[in-house]
């Protein structure tokens, strides 16, 4: 298989008259961690949701794991089994316990045996440090635990790429670390990851590449140290100044 996990060219997406993604080109190498940062409304979540076609693009081409997802005849369900996704709001299946959350798609989609699905699920629960919660209901878990279960659920499908849509934004501050720890461990294991995040520290330390988006465009991209440590574009500088030192800024003015 090629070294390119995700290749996006000329991606356009509008919601009605609102152009959210204007012309996005993006390549993610296999094994890379790419963090997407930018102000709210910049289109970063929409970009991520286009990668597994939860949002249908209006133009451009998306190739993931060698499969062109923008091909109208593509088997999107089968392609999605190779693309794990973790949501801001966890989205655990609230009527199923933790173990069933991890096995249901393995059983129904991958047609794994109950025994195998359970084995895979327990292995992944162990990876996120929640083996003892296998029989809890999602509502009984803290936000951080729910998100780690959600990561284990995605991993149970043996994905080749993982998408994270602001995975820590809905968490209490003291729970963020657990989730980021699991993500860092995944990155160390060589998982290809696309992460929309506001955690600059995480992006700086873990990302191979950082992308700054604003107004539906990729404004700046490059190694984490450069984009976060020494941004070249004024919009990137302005955004990072606000994020890294929020107390020393007045109300935002239109730039």
């Amino acid at each position, binding site marked *: 298989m090629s070294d390119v996990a995700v290749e996006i060219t000329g991606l356009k997406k509008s919601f009605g008259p609102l152009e959210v993604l204007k012309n996005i080109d993006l390549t993610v190498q296999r094994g890379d961690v790419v963090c997407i940062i930018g102000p709210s409304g910049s289109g970063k979540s929409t970009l991520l949701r286009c990668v597994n076609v939860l949002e249908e693009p209006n133009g451009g081409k998306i190739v993931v794991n060698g499969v062109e997802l923008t091909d109208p005849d593509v088997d999107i369900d089968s392609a*999605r089994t190779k*693309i794990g996704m973790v*949501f801001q709001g966890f989205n655990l299946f609230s*009527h199923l316990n933790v173990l*069933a959350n991890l096995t*249901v*798609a393995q059983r*129904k989609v991958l047609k794994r045996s109950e025994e195998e699905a359970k084995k895979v699920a327990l292995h992944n629960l162990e990876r996120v440090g929640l083996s003892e919660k296998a029989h809890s209901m999602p509502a009984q878990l803290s936000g951080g635990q729910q998100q780690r279960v959600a990561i284990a659920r995605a991993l149970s*499908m043996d994905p080749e790429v993982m998408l994270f849509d602001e995975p820590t934004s809905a968490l209490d501050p003291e729970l963020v670390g657990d989730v980021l720890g699991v993500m860092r461990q995944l990155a160390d294991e060589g998982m290809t990851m696309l992460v929309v995040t506001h955690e600059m520290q995480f992006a700086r330390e873990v990302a191979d590449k950082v992308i700054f988006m604003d107004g539906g465009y990729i404004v700046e991209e490059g190694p984490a140290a450069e984009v976060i440590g020494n941004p070249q574009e004024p919009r990137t500088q302005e955004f990072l100044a606000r994020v890294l030192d929020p107390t020393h800024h007045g109300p935002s003015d239109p730039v």
Partner: protein
Amino acid sequence: MAMSKRKRAEYIRYAQYGLLVVIAALVAFLADWGQIKGAFFNTEIAASMFPSVITVALKNTIIYTALGFAFGLALGLVLALMKLSSVAPYRWIATVYIEFFRGVPALLVFIGIYYGVPIAFQMQFPPLTTVMLALGGVGAAYMAETIRAGIQAVPKGQVEAARSLGMSQGRAMITIVIPQAFRIILPPLTNELILLTKDSSLIYILGLFREQYELTKFGRETLSRSPSLTPILIAGLCYLIITLPLGYLSRYLERRGTSGKKKVSA
């Protein structure tokens, strides 16, 4: 100096209590208790109704209701999915069905199926099938709207999570959305069941054998042979045997539903 607001509210409340007492006294004074006792509490007639009021009538009411509810639930689910379909004709058919059967009295549906079908199709459904189709057909119209609302109440993120794991639209609906929707709509569905229990009495327009009588028919039939309204009272109490527990069940489910801490094996 005018009365304080609190004092005035207190006097108004006393006035309301007083009025209630006066009305109750008037009713008690005007009613002929001897007649009422004879009309509704004839123990001899009441005793004569047992045990068949339970072994035949109550049993049949439950059977008819269960059949109607089962058929109505299945048809209602199909209609709800049609109503949510992206295929426009499905939506139209479902809308027309729901509006029609919600809008006409259940009695007319019973008559239509019992007398209309033999004329139109040269076939006659047995009573059990008729009651299932008529009761279920009407119930489906109500339940379809309830189920549709339940499906729409399931958070969108649940479907997105299911789709992101490779489930098809239909698979996500069956495995993830519908189980959660039913959990949400259990209380209103229990109310539908109570309404259907009472509507099952409409079967009286069908020509029935004695062993097919349900509570209302049984009560009316006993009534025609006795100089007392006692059979109606007994039949009414028997309905309460079914509906009161259902009402409690509905409220219990509602409480449990809002607590959000349900232990369910998967």
